[in-house]
């Protein structure tokens, strides 16, 4: 078909455009995935028994806010990357600032600790399972977010997939924090971030193929 004919045919279709609303679409995917993830966490791992005491400690809220803020920045980034031509530099800066903040906090925590305890502050007692559990708990969110993104219009597929992966990972980590009783900032900075980054990488790799339109 000639391009001129195509233009005529397309312009004849003046039906109102199916309105695309990235924020509600992504929020719906995020919410649905998070619910599934919370149920899986509660059934599979269980909520930590000392939660009532833990909420009085700073370390509990550190984990809570680190993962929640990371998710917020990743949501912002995903939303930007879900429509053509939107700028993404400010959410990127936000993500970097959060990573820098947790790194500084972890370094400070390590600096003031006696040398003999430092190793334990980093690896804690669940370093071997933490990133994998975060990855598993983030999968429902991952799937729902990709479904949501497929209804939007990302034009940088790897970047958009990576952002959605980070969002899924941070949400999975936030959910996992209801079970996890580690309290050291260095542990969170290393192993939470590792699990989240792994989901991000997975998203980048999948995005290239799953987000085409």
């Amino acid at each position, binding site marked *: 078909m000639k391009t001129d004919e195509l233009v005529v045919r397309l312009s004849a279709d003046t039906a109102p455009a199916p309105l695309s609303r990235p924020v509600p679409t992504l929020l719906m995917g995020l919410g649905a995935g998070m619910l599934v993830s919370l149920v899986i966490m509660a059934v599979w791992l269980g909520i930590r028994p000392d939660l009532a005491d833990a909420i009085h400690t700073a370390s509990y809220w550190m984990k809570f806010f680190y993962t929640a803020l990371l998710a917020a920045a990743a949501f912002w980034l995903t939303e930007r990357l879900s429509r053509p*031509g939107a700028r993404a530099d400010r959410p990127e800066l936000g993500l970097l600032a959060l990573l820098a903040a947790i790194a500084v906090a972890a370094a400070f925590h390590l600096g003031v600790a006696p040398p003999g305890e430092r190793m334990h502050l980093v690896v804690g007692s669940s370093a071997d399972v933490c990133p994998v559990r975060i990855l598993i708990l983030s999968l429902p969110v991952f799937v729902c977010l990709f479904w949501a993104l497929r209804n939007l219009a990302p034009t940088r597929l790897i970047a958009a997939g990576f952002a959605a992966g980070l969002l899924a990972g941070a949400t999975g980590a936030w959910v996992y924090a209801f079970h996890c009783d580690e309290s050291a900032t260095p542990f969170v900075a290393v192993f939470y971030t590792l699990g989240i980054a792994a989901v991000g990488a997975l998203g980048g790799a999948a995005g290239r193929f799953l987000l085409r339109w």
Partner: protein
Amino acid sequence: MIADETELRAWMMAGMAGDATAYRRLLDALSRHLRAFYSRRLGPALRSDAEDLVQETLIAMHARRGTYDSAQPLTAWVYAIARYKLIDFLRRKRLRQTLPLEEAGAIFAADESESAGARHDVEKLLATLPARSRAVLRSVKLDGLSVAETAAQTGMSESAVKVSVHRAMKNLAAKADGAGDEN
């Protein structure tokens, strides 16, 4: 005539509100922009692919016109979609690059892993020859052309080709011996 951002955006907004004439002007102008965009990037060899991409992009934009946020420049929105379709096309093309079935024999006939090392050595030796005799030698001994064909290709006489090949072989043999002694 290439329309500018203000005009394109006005046509887009009118088109979204149901004005078919404005929308058609927009698509006309964009198809010219897109044709220039793709032709410049794909080159003359892929001219027909450029036209396909123009159409594909127009359809994609039309289908997802709801993703245009009127607070953003329209050209940025269009450019992002055009760039995505270009990258997608290049990726697909790379994945699709295959040989016709008739040539499959040439791939599977010989296991070249063993000769790869030898070939590497030959290339190294060849590189030490003067350009002219290297070309002749490659043509006769490696590419398997006849002396007459080589002569026709290079514009040399047949006897000159024979002499050149002979000298180059002697030259290489001496160098190969020398290289062997070093090891």
